């Protein structure tokens, strides 16, 4: 499936031109992307920490998942919205970028995992083994997305 025409179209779009023409728009979007990332990774880290048996041990895993999930979703919505605009403004560069491809694959896996596994946590307490596995997978996937994202700028 050749996505090159899609990326080219995005790169030439009015939105891309508006963002690129502005002196501050790209930086502002990146800052908001970072706010979303802090909320997303911060909330997930605390939940995963609990899954691994640490952190907020006075609550059940379900209770933590219930409290945390709204904030994970707000963080996720923020990174997706800003990410889409940022990617549009740099579409041609990102098409060639290895780290971006890795980031998107990890992101797809992370979102799928979070929407299935984390949703399940709000409904019932997991077994000890499932909690450990889930916590580790979640941390690896989400921090993988983060590191791949940083790598885009450098490689």
């Amino acid at each position, binding site marked *: 499936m050749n996505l090159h025409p899609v990326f080219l179209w995005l790169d030439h779009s009015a939105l891309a031109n508006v963002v690129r023409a502005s002196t501050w728009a790209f930086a502002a979007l990146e800052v908001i992307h970072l706010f979303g990332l*802090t909320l997303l990774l911060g909330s997930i880290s*605390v939940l995963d920490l609990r899954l691994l048996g640490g*952190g907020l041990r006075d609550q059940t895993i379900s209770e933590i998942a219930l409290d*945390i999930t709204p*904030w994970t979703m707000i963080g996720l919505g923020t990174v997706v919205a800003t990410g889409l605009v940022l990617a549009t403004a740099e579409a041609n560069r990102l098409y060639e970028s290895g780290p971006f491809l890795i980031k998107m694959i990890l992101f797809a896996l992370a979102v799928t995992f979070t929407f299935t596994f984390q949703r399940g946590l709000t409904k019932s307490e997991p077994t000890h083994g499932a909690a450990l596995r889930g916590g580790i997978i979640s941390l690896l996937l989400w921090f993988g997305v*983060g*590191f791949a994202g*940083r790598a885009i700028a450098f490689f």
Partner: protein
Amino acid sequence: MLSLYQICQFIEDSQIGTAIRESQIVFPVIESFHVLGLAVSAGTIVLLDLRLTGLGMQRVLPAQLMHRLKAWYITGFILMMITGGLLFWAEAEKLYRSPTFRWKLVFLVIAGLNAAYYEFKYVPKMNHWDGNTSLPSGAKLAGWCSLISWAAVIGFGRWTAYGLK
């Protein structure tokens, strides 16, 4: 007597500063840990602030959030200081000339003072706050001050990296 600017030049031109700055892997790795360390440091504090301001995290008591997560956010902040220090070592002269970096430092100090104020005024009282009592308005204010100042640190931090020449 050396000026602060000359000291920053000296730091940036040092062997270690230069080695970090010109490296293929070391600088990107340090910078990545600095950015992702946000999750463990500011990200955990945000959850405590959400509780203090009443915006969320209602199933956890403030005392529990503070004490159960303390080891983690302290470790997170130590990581931020170490990676931040190394990044500064590599680019001290440019950072000296950056107005946005100065604003980042201003808000770091504000965030720190707010944390110290909260530590002395409210931490001793936290164990008495059960799930039903409304938190003192000073504690809520500290929560808002924390959210705003950390957001400013992150914002000015990113803006600094963007404008560094």
